[in-house]
């Protein structure tokens, strides 16, 4: 049970709104090569098992896990796919090490969303065929309903949500791999066309292509592979009801985030997350989600996130920096790889490799990802420089 697991390597490729220079296989090969190099140049023959996170329709392939092994160097190895956020894939990899059957496991995810003509159509296809789809409406109305309810329940304002956008897009300017960095004013967000009131078009993150591969190892192997292991102190994932019609507790708050975080905090022995964690990379697929997630993750009380944001608490130089990388709003939304993108920034910060946006004196970070509408699944992981 107390077998410790560390992240010993991480690599990425792509990170463009389109990526025509490489196929998805070539892109993943590149990310894997970088990851293995980062872990001291390990050859995949020495890796025990592999996990990918993907969804068939994102790739336009049925049973997309068929195409996982080659570009990871995983031919005839234990390989499986999780249809979940890549932090759930990370949890699967971690559990494998904790069983004792494996010592080194790779987790990967990618997005080639630019290859889809109509991602909205895909989101519609994730909704209930009898109760939601017949309306033939843009599926983001679900985000509109959620946001409106969240604002109603907490008294958070539309402007506070817009402030998340200006913060994250501005943070992204210090991150060379973030695509949507911009210096904009609050009004640019609030006066932009509305998608689904109160949600404006800039309250949504833009699409991103890219691939991320991470390598996990048991304590013993981690020490051999790297002198900068980043330890997984706690992990948790949870699902609220998938039925919109029974989200009487969850439409305005992120129940999944609360449950996932509780589990992760308990595992990490954290009682007061705001004080015991130094910074966080938190899902901001939509502007209001960052605030809602902050509250659900118990980093502040219900309805407090917006006010703390205005006080600068979550700025890079604030008490509790959130999405220093730019998040999804500033960096682009990597779909199934969303969680690994949040994780990557957390790892870089903890290693002190975050360049211009490096935070000082950080040793514990939180990464949290959500699977987007219409789902109610989220995963949280707590990383630390100390085992």
């Amino acid at each position: 049970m107390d077998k410790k697991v560390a992240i010993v390597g991480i690599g990425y490729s792509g990170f463009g709104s389109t990526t025509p220079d490489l196929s998805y296989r070539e892109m993943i090969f590149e990310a894997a090569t970088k990851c293995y190099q980062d872990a001291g140049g390990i050859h995949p023959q020495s890796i025990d098992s592999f996990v990918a996170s993907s969804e068939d329709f994102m790739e336009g392939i049925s049973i997309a896990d068929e195409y996982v092994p080659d570009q990871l160097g995983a031919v005839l190895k234990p390989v499986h796919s999780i249809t979940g956020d890549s932090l759930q894939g990370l949890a699967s990899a971690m559990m494998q090490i904790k069983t004792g059957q494996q010592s080194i496991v790779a987790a990967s995810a990618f997005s080639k969303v630019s290859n889809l003509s109509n991602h909205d159509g895909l989101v519609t296809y994730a909704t209930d065929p009898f109760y939601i789809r017949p309306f033939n409406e843009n599926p983001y109305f679900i985000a509109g309903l959620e946001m409106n309810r969240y604002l109603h329940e907490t008294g958070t304002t539309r402007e506070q949500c817009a402030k998340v956008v200006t913060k994250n897009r501005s943070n992204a300017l210090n991150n060379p791999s973030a695509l949507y960095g911009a210096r904009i004013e609050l009004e640019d967000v609030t006066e932009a066309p509305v998608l689904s009131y109160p949600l404006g078009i800039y309250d949504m993150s833009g699409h991103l292509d890219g691939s991320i591969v991470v390598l996990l190892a048991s304590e013993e192997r981690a020490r051999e592979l790297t002198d900068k292991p980043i330890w997984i102190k706690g992990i948790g994932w949870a699902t609220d009801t998938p039925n919109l019609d029974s989200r009487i507790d969850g439409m305005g708050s992120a129940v999944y985030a609360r449950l996932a975080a509780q589990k992760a905090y308990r595992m990490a022995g954290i009682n007061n997350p705001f004080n015991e964690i130094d910074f966080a990379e938190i899902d901001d697929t939509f502007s209001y989600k960052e605030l809602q997630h902050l509250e659900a993750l118990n980093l502040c009380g219900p309805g407090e996130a917006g006010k703390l944001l205005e006080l600068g608490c979550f700025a890079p130089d604030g008490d509790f920096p959130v999405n220093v990388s730019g998040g999804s709003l500033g960096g682009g939304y990597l779909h199934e790889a969303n969680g690994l993108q949040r994780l990557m920034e957390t790892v870089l910060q903890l290693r002190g490799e975050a360049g211009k946006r490096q935070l000082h004196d950080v040793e514990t970070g939180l990464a949290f990802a959500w699977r987007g509408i219409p789902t109610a699944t989220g995963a949280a992981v707590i990383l630390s420089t100390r085992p």
Partner: protein
Amino acid sequence: MAIMERNSRNIDNRYWNPGFKAFPVKNVYTAGAAGQRFFEEIKNNSKILGSRCEKCELTYVPARIYCERCFNRLEEKNWIDVGTEGTIYSYTLLFQTQNGEPRENPAVMVAVRIADGLLIHRLGEFSAADLEIDKPVKAKFKPKEKRKGCIEDIDYFKPIK
């Protein structure tokens, strides 16, 4: 570098478009054991049914055959008529079409709270002042002969004046 060559000229950048739908197939969905009964009642009797879990003290709308919280089977005796009125739990004005085209007149979608369920539907016959959380609304059904056993047998919800 991991990759020795990349497509570096636009003219080389190529994508494969199969020229037909990637999934040239469709699906047919049943309403299910619960849905069959739920929609029969809407279609034939203009009634909205919920199913009550006594243990969780929760009434699901639309009705289902099980309680998702405790897994109790919700039998015939648990199915109840919950009326056709509810309140707006949340609403939104949708300014884009399904395919992301902008549109002048927004669609208004509401989550209507009936018992412990949230029926997702359209709002109709309303004025701007009606757009408020907790406002009472009621279902407006289609004429009986036009009903097919689907959620659109309810035309929309409208404010109760």
